[in-house]
């Protein structure tokens, strides 16, 4: 070791020569030992350095563009809000379109009559009278006893007219009585509201012949005997026939849904009669 200390330079030169020889041999013999060893040590470091550099570069770019990004974020949020609003608007328009289509369909069903459309503006919250208000009155040519139709059939009649609104006595009110006939057998009777079934939106068929042939699902229409109601208007379907002490209780499900009634049509005049 003393020799090495004294001949430091010589030792270094010999070491470098040996090292170069080894590298040369490594290259000539294609062992690639040194390249692999160096790669093993330096490549991860290099990778780490490049990743750090790329990350830093991105962050610097991000910091440079932060104001632009913020503005873009605000713009995108506004756009999203606008889109949401538009979507809601289309949804409402679609619903309205569906309702109007239903109304148009309803109007086409009653082609023989001169009809006026109206909206239901208020309903009584569970009283003894089943009356609802519509937004058409004397100003629109509405008169007492005009017949009111809803979605699929008869809904009631006008009992009181004011300038801008009218009262409609619905079919399920106890006071309302409609002369009807069974469309299958032509048996005559009356449809009347009933305290027991009123809340469920149902009514009773009364004064029907005891021996009248009747089955559930029979369609009931207005008869020719009524002065107010034109004949042939659909009133509803027989829902159930209860037999109690040999007495028949015939429950009718009206064609109109009184729970969700929103639009109605009022028969102003029958076109044939006008001619």
């Amino acid at each position, binding site marked *: 070791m003393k020799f090495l200390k004294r001949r430091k330079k010589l030792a270094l030169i010999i070491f470098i020569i040996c090292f170069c020889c080894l590298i040369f041999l490594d290259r000539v013999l294609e062992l690639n030992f040194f390249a692999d060893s160096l790669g093993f040590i330096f490549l991860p470091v290099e990778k780490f350095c490049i990743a750090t550099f790329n990350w830093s570069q991105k962050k610097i770019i991000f910091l440079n563009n932060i104001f632009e990004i913020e503005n873009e974020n605000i713009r995108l949020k506004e756009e999203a809000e606008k889109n949401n609003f538009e979507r809601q608007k289309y949804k409402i328009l679609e619903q309205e379109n569906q309702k109007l289509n239903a109304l148009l369909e309803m109007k086409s069903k009653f082609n023989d009559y001169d009809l006026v459309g109206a909206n239901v503006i208020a309903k009584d*919250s569970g009283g003894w009278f089943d009356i609802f208000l519509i937004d058409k009155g004397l100003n629109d040519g509405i008169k007492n006893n005009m017949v009111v139709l809803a979605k699929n059939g008869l809904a009631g009649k006008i009992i009181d007219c004011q300038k801008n609104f009218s009262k409609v006595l619905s079919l399920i009110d106890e006071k309302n009585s409609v002369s009807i006939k069974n469309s299958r057998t032509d048996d005559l009777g009356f449809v009347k509201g009933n305290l027991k079934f009123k809340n469920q939106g149902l009514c009773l068929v009364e004064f029907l012949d005891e021996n009248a042939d009747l089955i559930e699902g029979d369609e009931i229409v207005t008869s020719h005997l009524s002065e107010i109601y034109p004949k042939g208007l659909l009133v509803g379907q027989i829902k159930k026939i209860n037999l109690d002490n040999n007495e028949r209780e015939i429950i009718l499900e009206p064609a109109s849904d009184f729970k969700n009634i929103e639009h109605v049509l009022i028969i102003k005049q029958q076109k044939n009669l006008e001619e």
Partner: protein
Amino acid sequence: MRWLFNLVLFVFSFGFNFGLLDKLELNYVKADFFLVIIICLDVLRNETESILFGFFLGLTRDIFFSDKICFYAAIYAVTGYLFCKPFKYFYRENFFIPMILVFFATIFFEITGSVFYYGFSFYKYLFYVLNRIIFPKAIYNVVLILFFYPILYYINKKVETFENKFIKR
């Protein structure tokens, strides 16, 4: 201030009863907000105001939703008068009393109204109506008063404080 409060309450109860309560139907039963308001006024105010309020609320209901005049008005006014009586012995801070009162007031109101409207034919359906309409409606009204009485109590207190300040000046 008191009359302004009454007017706002009147308009609100009308809109709430015929606009919103119709949509809040539970199992074919709708609450009667007018009764709730009348009972609240019974407790918070005096019988004169309660009767007047009941009469005019009933009258509006008659005008729009019945073919008789003073049918609802009379029943609401009588209910307001009768159910004001027990409050000579109770404190208005007791939130439990209006609940009991509105329960019995609903039963009284519905039975009286039905007897006047249907006459003897009503007895045929008495138990059905009691089970399916009157009791559920009474419970629904109790739930409503549970929400509205504290609010009205608070507003009324504010109105009274304001009035007292005004009188002192």
